[in-house]
């Protein structure tokens, strides 16, 4: 803010007036929100927090402001093991062409009702 807010700081303790100490950034957490009872938690995004207790509070403040949730999980981003983006072919191409793994592949037998 330039031009000076009159209602903010008294100057002496201004957050930006002291020597700026470098500090480590807060660790990253992934946030999962359950929108209502019976549904699963769905990944909503991520945030920074100094520890787990603050992470779940920050998640509340950032991701449930519009009544989105009834339950929250936070997980340290570093604790999540992901599949290798470069291994997409060998990981995910195998099911292609194997339509017989879908129920819709099969034609309904005569005489089977209510399917």
């Amino acid at each position: 803010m330039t031009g000076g807010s009159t209602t903010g700081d008294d100057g002496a303790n201004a957050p930006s007036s002291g020597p700026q100490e470098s500090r480590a950034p807060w660790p990253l957490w992934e946030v999962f929100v359950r929108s209502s009872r019976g549904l699963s938690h769905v990944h909503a995004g991520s945030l920074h927090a100094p520890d787990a207790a603050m992470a779940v509070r920050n998640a509340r403040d950032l991701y449930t402001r519009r009544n989105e949730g009834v339950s929250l999980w936070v997980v340290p981003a570093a604790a999540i093991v992901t599949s290798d983006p470069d291994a997409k072919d060998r990981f995910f191409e195998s099911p292609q062409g194997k339509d017989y793994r879908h129920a819709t592949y099969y034609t309904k037998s005569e005489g089977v009702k209510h399917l």
Partner: protein
Amino acid sequence: MSESSASATRITPGNALRPEDIALLDVKPGDAVAEYALCLGDDALILAQRLGWWISRAPELEEDVALANIALDQIGHARSFLTYAGRAWGRTEDDLAYFRREPEFRSVHLVEQPNGDFARTIARQFVVALYQWELYSRLVESDDPTIAAIAAKAVKEVDYHRDHSVQWVLRLALGTDESRRRMVDGLRLTWPYVDELFADFPLIDALGGAGVRPSTLRAPFDAAVQKVLVEAELEVPAVPGAVGGGRLGRHSEHLGYILAELQVLAREHPGASW
């Protein structure tokens, strides 16, 4: 209401009493209850204005949103209390927020204290939230059903403000030497304004069971403070109390500047909407 409950994004107002509902109520508060609502509404309004300063300035983005959420909760409480108070005098919440002069405000000195650094703001939040939680927990049983309904909505939100400030008092106090020094300073600068919260003022005698006698909140407040400060390895600052008088319209030099910023737009452009 039914339209928004059908929304796919689940934006539901819930069953909480909204200022818009209060404006339509048939009941009007008597003068004493209206004056009381003004006191509580002004506390919330001025605190919200102070907290709003942090938006874009907090140490982290997450904390920026946390403080903004708390400010918005307080604005919600202020709107309800001021709307209800205004019913007694045929004035709207905006009339009361934007077109009263400094001596007509009934807020305590604590809420007009400068933000200082983050620790000083947290110290102020710590005191306000613990006080408001004790107050609203009692006010849900007010003889005045509207005051009770506003308190019932507010107490849940203030419960979170309490948790938020306690978490930060603990972390700042038990963090680094620098964060502890700032927390101790913040409490020392805040504490002179605690006594006023619990001082009984003449209006209270006229309220009957509609309000809560402030002095009766002191013991539970002190106990709650003590519990946190012990855990934070801190002590209640030994500082003399400041001169109060906010409930009577006597304010420190800070309130005028706060009101100038709060009211300038509405006064420059009366009736403007956006």
